[in-house]
């Protein structure tokens, strides 16, 4: 399969994503540039973390309008796989490819730390290599990761299993203490209702080598590979 990683002005984890995919996962992955429209026949588009356009208005608000996003939206409508991490998640929400929005952490501070998420639904291309309820150690690093969605929408999402990962404590249960940013329902990542677009705040690309704090992120990349095999 082929991966494409988009670089927006202000993307930061684009190089790390390429490193994780190419050097660790030994995948065919190539950079995509925000001013281009050509997705180069990739099978999965990744929107990486960072501060696109400085995130000066709202996170992800401006990136959504870059030329490449037009192609990404069409690609997603045709069922193509799109993964958004951190700022990428924010962009996907702004582009209405995912429901809800991400707002300022309830502590108002940027938070960088490793924590645990629980996989909530393994019947998706992004989680099929994981066990149901599996706990993954992943790092977060963001200032605006508080997930919100209208109540009724949220209920529908929960019913359909669109919440793919949730912040949990050491016993594997969601709790206020284990919720780093105040997200509704401890949501760490959600998929759209067709399950071909997935956004999450934790960074799987920063959890691919035991030496660098663990490899829980491999589950997600392997799922994608497996689903396309």
């Amino acid at each position, binding site marked *: 399969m082929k991966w494409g990683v988009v670089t927006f002005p202000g993307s930061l984890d684009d190089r790390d994503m390429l490193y994780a995919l190419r050097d660790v996962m030994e995948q065919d992955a190539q950079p995509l540039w925000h001013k281009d429209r050509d997705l180069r026949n990739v099978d999965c588009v990744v929107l990486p973390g960072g501060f696109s356009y400085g995130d000066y*208005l*709202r996170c992800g*608000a*401006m990136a959504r*309008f870059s030329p490449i996003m037009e192609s990404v939206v069409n690609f997603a409508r045709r069922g193509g796989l799109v993964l958004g991490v951190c700022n990428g998640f924010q962009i996907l*929400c*702004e582009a209405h490819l995912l429901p*809800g*929005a991400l*707002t*300022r*952490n*309830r*502590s*108002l501070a940027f938070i960088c730390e490793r924590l645990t998420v629980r996989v909530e639904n393994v019947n998706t291309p992004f989680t099929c290599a994981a066990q149901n309820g599996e706990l993954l150690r992943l790092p977060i690093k963001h200032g605006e990761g*508080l997930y*919100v*969605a*209208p109540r009724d929408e949220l209920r529908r999402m929960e019913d359909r299993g669109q919440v793919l990962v949730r912040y949990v404590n050491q016993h594997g249960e969601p709790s206020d203490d284990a919720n780093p940013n*105040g997200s509704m329902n401890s949501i760490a990542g959600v998929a759209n209702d067709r399950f071909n677009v997935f956004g999450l705040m934790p960074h799987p690309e920063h959890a691919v080598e035991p030496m660098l704090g663990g490899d829980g992120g491999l589950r997600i990349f392997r799922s994608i590979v497996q689903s396309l095999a």
Partner: protein
Amino acid sequence: MYITPKRGVLDPQGRAIEHSLKSLGFHNVGQVRMGKYIELDVAAQSAEEAAGEVGRMCEQLLANSVIEDYRLEVEGA
């Protein structure tokens, strides 16, 4: 133009400000809400035209309707 968090959406910044003000001794403050204020010049024939234009900017870019409300004010130049 004023962009404010929708009612019902958590406004941690507003809450933090309220808290700080109270601890500074301003006991008569009630709820604080914090939003954005954007000032821009638009070349337009009329106030209506300008408002329409800015409305479109808000819908498209400046405000996110999931979490924010907006309100416009136009001043002639």
